[in-house]
C-alpha cells in the first residue's frame, strides 16, 4: 500500500517532480509559441525581397563599416572630446543617482525603516523603473528642452530607481543579529547605519554603482542621438542619418566599444584590488 504522500502518474509510475500543473503550463506555452512562430513565416509579405542580394549588400555594408573605418567629418581630438562628453553625462547621472539612492534605500529597507515609508518608496520607485529611460528623458525635455539637461535628469531619475532597489536589497541582507546587538547597546539609528550597515554592504553598493555606470554609459550614447544631449552618440546619429557615412559609423562604433571594454576592465580591476574580502 502506498503512503498518502506518494503520487503516481496515469501509467502507474511514481512521480518525482512536484507541481505537475506548472510543468504542463510551461509545456503548453512552449508548444503554442512554436506553432505561432512557424505560421507567422507563412503570412509575411515577401514582395520585392531578393534574399541573395539582400544578404550580399548587407555583407558589403558591414565590411565598409567595420573593415574600413575612418573619420571624415571631424578630427581625432574632437572624437576624443565627444567620448569625454558622453562619459561625463554617465558619471554625473551615476554619482548623483547613487548618493540620492543611498538615502532613499535606507528608508525603503524593511529592516531599517518604517513599514509604510518603505512600502510607499518601493511602489514609487517601481513605477519609475517601469518607464524606460528614453521616455523619462523626453518627459523632462518638455520642461528643460532637448539637450544634456533633460538627458541627465532622465538618466538620473532612472538610475535612482534602479539603485534604490539594488541598495535596499543589499541592506535587507544585513545580519539581523548585528543590528540587534547595536540596538542593545543603546545606539541610535544613524550609528547603526554608519558603523554596521555601511561597512557590511559597501562592496555591494560599489559594485551596483559600477554596473549602473556601465549601463548609463550606453544610455548616454543613445541619449546623444535621441535627445540631442551631445557627445559621441550625437556624432553617430549625424554620421548615419545625415551623411550616410558608413566608415565613420564604423569608427564611432569601435570607439564606443573600446571605452566599454576599458570601463569593464577598470571596474573588475578596482573590485579585485580594493574590495576582495
Amino acid at each position: 500500500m502506498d503512503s498518502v504522500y506518494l503520487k503516481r502518474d496515469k501509467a502507474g509510475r511514481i512521480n518525482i517532480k512536484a507541481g505537475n500543473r506548472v510543468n504542463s503550463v510551461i509545456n503548453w506555452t512552449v508548444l503554442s509559441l512554436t506553432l505561432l512562430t512557424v505560421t507567422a513565416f507563412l503570412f509575411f509579405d515577401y514582395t520585392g525581397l531578393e534574399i541573395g542580394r539582400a544578404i550580399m549588400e548587407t555583407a558589403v555594408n558591414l565590411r565598409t563599416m567595420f573593415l574600413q573605418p575612418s573619420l571624415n567629418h571631424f578630427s581625432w581630438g574632437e572624437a576624443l572630446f565627444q567620448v569625454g562628453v558622453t562619459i561625463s553625462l554617465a558619471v554625473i547621472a551615476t554619482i548623483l543617482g547613487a548618493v540620492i539612492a543611498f538615502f532613499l534605500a535606507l528608508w525603503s529597507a524593511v529592516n531599517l525603516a518604517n513599514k509604510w515609508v518603505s512600502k510607499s518608496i518601493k511602489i514609487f520607485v517601481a513605477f519609475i523603473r517601469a518607464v524606460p529611460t528614453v521616455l523619462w528623458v523626453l518627459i523632462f525635455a518638455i520642461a528643460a528642452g532637448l539637450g544634456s539637461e533633460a538627458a541627465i535628469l532622465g538618466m538620473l531619475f532612472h538610475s535612482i530607481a534602479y539603485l534604490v532597489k539594488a541598495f535596499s536589497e543589499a541592506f535587507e541582507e544585513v545580519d539581523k543579529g548585528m543590528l540587534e546587538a547595536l540596538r542593545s547597546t543603546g545606539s541610535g539609528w544613524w550609528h547603526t547605519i554608519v558603523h554596521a550597515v555601511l561597512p557590511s554592504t559597501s562592496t555591494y553598493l560599489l559594485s551596483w554603482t559600477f554596473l549602473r555606470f556601465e549601463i548609463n554609459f550606453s544610455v548616454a550614447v543613445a541619449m546623444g542621438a535621441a535627445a540631442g544631449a551631445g557627445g559621441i552618440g550625437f556624432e553617430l546619429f549625424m554620421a548615419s542619418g545625415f551623411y550616410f557615412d558608413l566608415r565613420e559609423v564604423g569608427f564611432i562604433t569601435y570607439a564606443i566599444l573600446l571605452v566599454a571594454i576599458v570601463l569593464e576592465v577598470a571596474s573588475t580591476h578596482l573590485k579585485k584590488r580594493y574590495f576582495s574580502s
Partner: protein
Amino acid sequence: MSLLQVKDLNKSYQTDTKVLKNINFSAGTGEFLSVIGPSGAGKSTLLRCINRLVQADKGEILFGGQDLLKLRKKELRAARTNIGMIFQHYNLVPRLTVIENVLHGRFGYKSTLQGVLGRFSEEEKERAFYLLEKLGIEAHAYKRCDQLSGGQQQRVGICRALIQNPKLILCDEPIASLDPHSSKVIMDHLKSISEEMGITCIVNLHQVEVAQSYSDRIIGLNNGSIVFDGSNFQLDQLYIKRVYGMETRELITV
C-alpha cells in the same frame, strides 16, 4: 533592594499562542542567574523583553527604580546603556576591527553626530584596550573580526558589553556554538564579571550542569511559565523533569 524586578510579564507573537505567561522574578546586584529550559520555552524572548528588543504585551520591568516598558525612545536608549547583551552568534560587525567593535558599546553615550563620525575619547580607547587585555585578546585588537575564532569573537562581545559600564548583562546562550574549552573560558569570565565587578548576569543556558556549577540561582522555564526558581542545589531530578518534561538520564546535561 533588587536591581531588576519583572512583574506579570506577558508576551505573545500570534494572538492565541502565548510565549511568556505571567513571569515574575527578581535579580539582585552581582547575582549570577541562569535561565534553563527546552528550545521554544521563551528564554530568548524573556531576555529580549528586558531590554525591549522585543516589545512585551503586559507587565512591568523595574530596573533601578524605573519601569522599562514605559520609557520613550530617548529614555530607552539611556536605559539600554546600563544593560549589556551577549549573543549566541556574537553579532559583531565582521568587516570591522576588534577595537572598533568594542567601541560600538559606547554609542549609547554619544550624540548622533559624535557617533556617526566615530569620535571616541582617549579614555574610552584606553578602557577598550584595558578590557581586551583583561580578556586576553589585546594581541588581536587590529584584526578584522571575521579572522577570529568563535571563542575569541565571544570575548570581543563581552568587551563590547563591558565598555558600556552596565549594571546588568544579558547573555543569550553565550556558549551554545563554542567548543568545551572556549565555553569554560567564557563562563569563567562571566562568573568573574559578576563576582568582581558586581554586575548582575542573566544567562540563558542549555547545559544544566554548567548552570548548576556557575549560578547563584536558576530559573527553569517551560512553555512560557516559570516552573523552578531557586538556588542551584535545589534543582533536583524532580524539577529537571518539570523543566524538560523527562528524566535526567534521558538528557545530555553537560
